[in-house]
C-alpha cells in the first residue's frame, strides 16, 4: 500500500468564498508532490484542511486507506501527518532541543505519576526522546544551537528547526508550507538535495507548497496546480511547464484567451 494521502473532491468555503473547490490530490510513499498556484489560490487552506485545522465543507480525505475527514488535528498528527507553517510557528521561548522533544510527546508511554516520582518507563523514554532529538538536530545541522532559544535563531535555521520538529513526530507524510521562502539560491539548492535524500532514506511522502518555481520543478515528482481554489493541472514538472492553463494562470492571457507568449513578444 504505497498510496499515503488521497484527497477526493475536497472543498472548503469561508462564507461565500470557495477557497478550495473540488481538489483531488494523491501523494504516494517516496514521492514529493508540489502544490503550486498564484497567491490566494488556496494552497495553505488545502493543507489546513488535510491536517485538521479547518473542517472541509465537502469531500473526503483518506490517509493510509482510512478516512480522516474531520478528525481533530492532534489525532491526525499522531496518525503520521506532520507539517510546517508558512509563517514559522516555533515555541519561541523554549530551547531548540525542547522544540524538537515536544513533538515526541505523543510517543511517550509513561504517566504523569511516573514522571513525578521517576519510576517505571520515565527515564528510558526521556533518554530515547532526547537522543532522537539530538539525532534530528544533527541531521539538520543544528546540533551546536541545541540550547539556544528558538527565537534567537536566524530565519533559515528556524525553518530547518521546524522541519526537525516535524520529523520528530516520525511522520509518514510531511507537508511543507513554503520551506525555502527567504532562503538564498545556495541554501535552496542545498535544501533541495536534503529533501531528496530525506525522501529516499526515510521513504516518506512529501507535500510541498512553494513559489520558487525552479526549486519546485527540480525536486517534485508530481505537481498539482490550483488557481482560485480550482485545480487546473496535474502532472510531472515537464508537463506542467508546458501547460497552457498554468501559464495563463501565472502570466495572464491576451485578448483572445491565449496565454501571453513572453518569449516572442
Amino acid at each position, binding site marked *: 500500500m504505497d498510496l499515503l494521502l488521497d484527497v477526493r473532491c475536497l472543498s472548503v468555503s469561508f462564507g461565500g468564498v470557495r477557497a478550495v473547490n473540488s481538489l483531488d490530490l494523491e501523494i504516494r510513499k517516496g514521492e514529493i508532490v508540489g502544490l503550486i498556484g498564484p497567491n490566494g489560490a488556496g494552497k495553505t487552506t488545502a493543507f489546513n484542511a488535510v491536517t485538521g485545522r479547518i473542517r472541509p465543507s465537502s469531500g473526503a480525505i483518506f490517509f493510509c486507506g482510512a478516512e480522516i475527514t474531520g478528525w*481533530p488535528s*492532534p489525532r491526525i498528527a*499522531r496518525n503520521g501527518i506532520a507539517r510546517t507553517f508558512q509563517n514559522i510557528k516555533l515555541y519561541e521561548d523554549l530551547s531548540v532541543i*525542547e522544540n524538537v522533544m*515536544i513533538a515526541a*510527546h*505523543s510517543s511517550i508511554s509513561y504517566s504523569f505519576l511516573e514522571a*513525578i*516520582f521517576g519510576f517505571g518507563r520515565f527515564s528510558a523514554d526521556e533518554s530515547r526522546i532526547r537522543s532522537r532529538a539530538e539525532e534530528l538536530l544533527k541531521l539538520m545541522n543544528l546540533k551546536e544551537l541545541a540550547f539556544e532559544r528558538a527565537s534567537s535563531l536566524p530565519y533559515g535555521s528556524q525553518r530547518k528547526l521546524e522541519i526537525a520538529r516535524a520529523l520528530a513526530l516520525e511522520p509518514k507524510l510531511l507537508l511543507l508550507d513554503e520551506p525555502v521562502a527567504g532562503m538564498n539560491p545556495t541554501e535552496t539548492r542545498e535544501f533541495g538535495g536534503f529533501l531528496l535524500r530525506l525522501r529516499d532514506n526515510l521513504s516518506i511522502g512529501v507535500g510541498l507548497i512553494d513559489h520558487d518555481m525552479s526549486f519546485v520543478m527540480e525536486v517534485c515528482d508530481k505537481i498539482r496546480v490550483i488557481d482560485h481554489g480550482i485545480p487546473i493541472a496535474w502532472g510531472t514538472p515537464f508537463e506542467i511547464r508546458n501547460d497552457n492553463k498554468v501559464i495563463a494562470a501565472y502570466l495572464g492571457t491576451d485578448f483572445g484567451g491565449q496565454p501571453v507568449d513572453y518569449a516572442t513578444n
Partner: protein
Amino acid sequence: MNKTKVSRDKSLTIFSVLLLLAFIFYAERNFNHYTIRILENIAIFITLAVSYNLINGIMGQFSLAPNAFLAIGAYTSAIFTLSPEEKLRSFIIEPMIWPLSVLSLPFAVSLLLAGLVTALVAFFMAAPVFRVRGDYLAIVTLGFGEVIQVLANNLISLTNGSLGLKGLHPYTNLWWAWGVCIFTIFCTVRLINSSYGRAMKAVREDEIAAEAMGINAFRVKTLAFTFSAFFQGVAGGLLAHLITTISPSLFTFMFTFNLLIIIVIGGLGSTTGSVIAAILITWGGEALRVFEEPSNFLGFNYKGVPGMRMVLFSLILILVMLFARSGIMGRAEFSWESLFRWFRRKLPC
C-alpha cells in the same frame, strides 16, 4: 549535562532540604509564636503560588480560580476533622447532614481528601472552562470562584452558611506546612521537567503548533488544572487548620489577587520566582509594619500612620514592575550550575 554533575546536583539539593529541615527544627524551639506563624504562612503561600504558577505561568492559561480551590480544600478538610460534638454545637441554623455529622478523621487523611475532592472538582470544571481562552477564561474562572462562595453561604447543612466553621483544632504546624510545601515543589518541578511539562509550555507558546505536533491541548490543560487544584486544596486544608476559623468571606477574589501578584512579581513561568516572591511578599507584608508604629529616628519623631504599610507595599510593587518587567526571575529557573557560574564570575580565582 554529564552524570557526575547530575549526582552532584542531586546531593546538593538533598543537603539543602536537610538544612531547611534543621532550620525548622531550630525555629520550632527558639522562635516566638509570631515568627513561627509567619513561617507557616510563607510555606502555605509558596505551595499556593507554585501550583498556581503551573496554570498561569507554565501553561499560559489565565485562570482566576485559586480562591475557589482554596475554599473547597479548606471546607473539605475542616468538615472531616471537626469532632461530632463540635459540629453539633456549631451548626445552629440547620443541623449537619447525617454521615458527615458523626464523621471525624485524622488530619493527614482530611488533607488528602481535601486535595482529592478539589482535584475532582477541577477535573469536571476543566471541560466547560477550557472551551474558552485568554480573557474569557479569566472571566469564567472568576465566576466559578463566586459560585463557590455563594454555595458556601447557602449550603447551610454542609458549610454552616455565613457563620462558618469554628473551633478547628490547630493541627497545622511548621512541619506540616513545610512538608507539604517541599512536596509540592518537588512534584511540580518534576512534572515541568517531563514531557508533560514540555507539552504545557508548547501550549503556552503556540497552541496551534502544539496541536499540529500531536499534543491534545485540552487533555494537557485538564491535567495541569487538576494537578494544580490538588495542591491548592491541600494548602486550603492547611490554612483552615492554621487560622482555625473559616467562613465564606475569607475566600474572596482578593485571595486570588494576592497570589496573582506573587506569581507576576516572581516571574510568570518560573517556579523559583514564585517561591522567592511568596517569601518576599508574605514576610515583607509583616516587616513593613514598623512604618505603622511610632518611632524615633535621629531625633525626628514619627507618629506612625496606620495603613502606611500598604502604601509602601504598592510603591515597591510599582518599582519592581518598572525595573523588572518580567518579574524577579523572568522565566529563568534556579539551578546549581548557574549558582556556581555566578560565584565563579564574582570570585575570579
